[in-house]
C-alpha cells in the first residue's frame, strides 16, 4: 500500500463514517429529515467508491480476469454496502435481511478466492440457519408493532467513531507493512513449514531402498479422502480434502478443543431445556 492509497483510504473512511453517522437511526427512534438521509447516503456511497478503488481483484485465469474482477467488485461493494445497511436499518427484519446479504456477498468473495468449502459453510451456517432463526425470533417478538428500542440507535456517535477508528487502524497497519522481499530464506522456511505436514513428510523419504519409516508413515496416514488418489492437475482442486487434511494434521488440537467446547455447550443446552418436574424444585432448594 502506497502513501497515496493510504490517504485515499483515510478520506474514504472519513466519508463513510460521516455517511454512516447520518444514516443511523435517531437516538429516540424518530424519523430524521429526508435531506439528512440523502446526504448520508451520498457520503457513504462516495466512501464506498473510494474504498473499492483500493481493492485489487484476484487473478484466477486469463479470461476470468474480467468476469472474476467484475464479480469481485459486485461482492465487495455488496458486502460493505449491506453491512452499512444492516446497522442503519430502522426495522430489525430488514437488518437481518441485509445481514444475510453480507453473508452471501462474503461467500461470493470466498468463492473467488477458491475457498469453496468456506463459502458453502458460511451460507449454510449463517444465512441458512442463524439469520433465519433471528428472523423467526424478530417476527415472533414483533407481533404488536415495533418497539422503540428496536428502532433507536444507542449512542450512534461513539459507535461510529469506534468502528471506523478500527477500520482506519487496519488500513494504517496495511500501509506500514513492509513490502515482500523475495529471497532464498523465504523458500527454505516455507519448505520447512510444508515438511511438517504428515503426508509430505512421507513423500520426502526416498522411494527405493529400505524406507521403513516411509511405509510406517503411509500406513498411519491412510487416505480417507481422495486427495492423493488422483493428484491430477487437470482435475478440480481437492478443496475439501485439503481443508480436512490441514484441520486434522496441523490443527488437530484446536479441532479437538473446539469439539469438546461445543459438546459441553450441547450438554448444557440439554440440561437447561429439559423441564424439571415441579416437585423436585423445593427438594433441590433445601439441599442448597
Amino acid at each position, binding site marked *: 500500500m502506497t502513501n497515496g492509497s493510504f490517504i485515499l483510504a483515510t478520506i474514504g473512511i472519513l466519508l463513510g463514517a460521516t455517511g454512516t453517522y447520518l444514516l443511523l437511526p435517531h437516538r429516540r427512534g424518530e424519523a430524521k429529515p429526508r435531506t439528512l438521509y440523502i446526504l448520508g447516503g451520498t457520503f457513504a456511497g462516495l466512501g464506498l467508491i473510494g474504498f473499492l478503488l483500493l481493492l485489487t481483484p484476484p487473478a484466477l485465469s486469463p479470461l476470468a480476469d474480467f468476469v472474476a474482477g467484475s464479480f469481485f467488485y459486485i461482492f465487495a461493494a455488496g458486502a460493505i454496502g449491506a453491512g452499512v445497511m444492516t446497522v442503519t436499518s430502522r426495522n430489525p427484519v430488514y437488518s437481518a435481511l441485509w445481514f444475510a446479504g453480507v453473508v452471501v456477498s462474503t461467500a461470493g468473495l470466498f468463492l473467488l478466492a477458491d475457498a*469453496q468449502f468456506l463459502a*458453502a459453510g458460511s451460507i449454510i451456517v449463517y*444465512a*441458512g*440457519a442463524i439469520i433465519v432463526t433471528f428472523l423467526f425470533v424478530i417476527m415472533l417478538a414483533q407481533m404488536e408493532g415495533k418497539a422503540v428500542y428496536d428502532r433507536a440507535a444507542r449512542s450512534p456517535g461513539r459507535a461510529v467513531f469506534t468502528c471506523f477508528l478500527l477500520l482506519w487502524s487496519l488500513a494504517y497497519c496495511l500501509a506500514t507493512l513492509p513490502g515482500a522481499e523475495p529471497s532464498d530464506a523465504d523458500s527454505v522456511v516455507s519448505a520447512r513449514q510444508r515438511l511438517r505436514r504428515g503426508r509430505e513428510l512421507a513423500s520426502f523419504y526416498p522411494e527405493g531402498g529400505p524406507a521403513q519409516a516411509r511405509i510406517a508413515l503411509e500406513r498411519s496416514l*491412510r487416505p480417507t*479422502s481422495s486427495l492423493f488418489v488422483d493428484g491430477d492437475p487437470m482435475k478440480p482442486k481437492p478443496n475439501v480434502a485439503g481443508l480436512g487434511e490441514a484441520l486434522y494434521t496441523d490443527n488437530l488440537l484446536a479441532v479437538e478443543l473446539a469439539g469438546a467446547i461445543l459438546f459441553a455447550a450441547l450438554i448444557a443446552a440439554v440440561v437447561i431445556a429439559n423441564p424439571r418436574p415441579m416437585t423436585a424444585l423445593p427438594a433441590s432448594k433445601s439441599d442448597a
Partner: protein
Amino acid sequence: MTIWVLIGILIKMLVVVGVTQGAVAYLILVERKIAAYAQDRIGPNRCGREIGVPFALIQPLADGAKMLLKEDVVPKYVTKPLYILAPWIAIATAMIGFAVVPFGPVGPNQIIDFQIAPNVDIGILYVLAVGSLAVYGVILAGWASNNKYAFIGGLRSSAQLISYEIPLGLSILGMVLIAGSLDMNRIMAWQSRHVWGILVQPLGFILFFTSAFAETNRLPFDLPESEQELVGGFHTEYSAMKFGMFFLGEYLHVITVSFITVILFFGGWDVPFVTSPDQSGLLWAIVKVGVITSKVGLVILFIMWVRWTLPRFRYDQLMDLAWKSMIPLALINLVMTAGIVQLVRTYWV
C-alpha cells in the same frame, strides 16, 4: 479458459433453464393427472382436443397463459419490497441449485460436460447451501403479506426447514464418507464401480428422502400451506404470476431433489449388470442422459404418488419426527458408517 468456454456455459445455462421450466409445466399436468387417478377422477383431458392434440398435452400452455393474464393483485397493506422480492427468491434459489447437478457424463474425455459448473469440488454441499436459502422466500412471503394465516405459514415453514436441514445434511454424509468425496461425479463413479448407494446406505436413503419431502414442502410435510387450517399458507396473498413463481420454485426443488436422490442412492446413469469397458463417445453420453432422466422421472412420480397417498402430519408430530427420531438415527448412521469405512479401508483395501 477461453471466451468460448464462457459462451458454452451460457448456452448450457439457457438449455437447462429452458428444459427444466418446460419439465415443470408438464410435471404440473402429470401431478393433476395422478391426483385425478388417485381420487378416481379423470383429470384434465380436454385442452387441445379441438386441434387434435391428445391427452390434454397443451394444458400446461393454457395454465401458463392463465397465470400470466390474471390480475396481479398487490394488497394495500403488504410490505411491498419484500412482498415482490419473495417469489423471486423462491425461484432463484431453486434454479441456481441446479448449477452443480450433473445430468450426464462429465469428464476430460467427453465432448460436452453435462453440468453447468463441473469444477465445483464441494458439489453436494453447494446444493445444500443454496437450498438453505430457499427458506427466505417462504418466510418473507409470510411476513410481508401482513396476514395472520400467511404469517403462521411462514413461521411454520422456517421452523420446519431449519429442523429438517440437519437430518438432510447428516444423511448425505454417509454416502460422502463411502465415496470419499463431496463431488457428485465421484460419488456416481464409486457407485458404478461397486454397488448402488441405496444398498450400502439404506437408512441414509430413508432419512434423506423423508427430509427431502420436508425441504420441498411436499405432503405429508406441507404444513406451511396446509389448506384447511391456513387458507393457503404463506402464499395466501399472492396471485397471478407471483403465485406461479412459488409454484415453479416448488417443482424445481422437486426436480433438483430427485436428481440428487438418483445421483446419491440410485447410481446416477449407471445401469446394473451393464459393464462395458469403453463408455465414452457421444452415443454413450446420450444413453447416460436418458438413463438418469428416466430414473429422475420415476422418483418424481413416486413423490407425487406419496402426495396423494399419505395424510398430513400434525405440527408437533412433524417436529418430534425431526428432532427425536430422525436426527438421532442420522447420527447413529453417520458414526456407524465412519467406523465401518475406516475398518474396511484399514484391513481389506
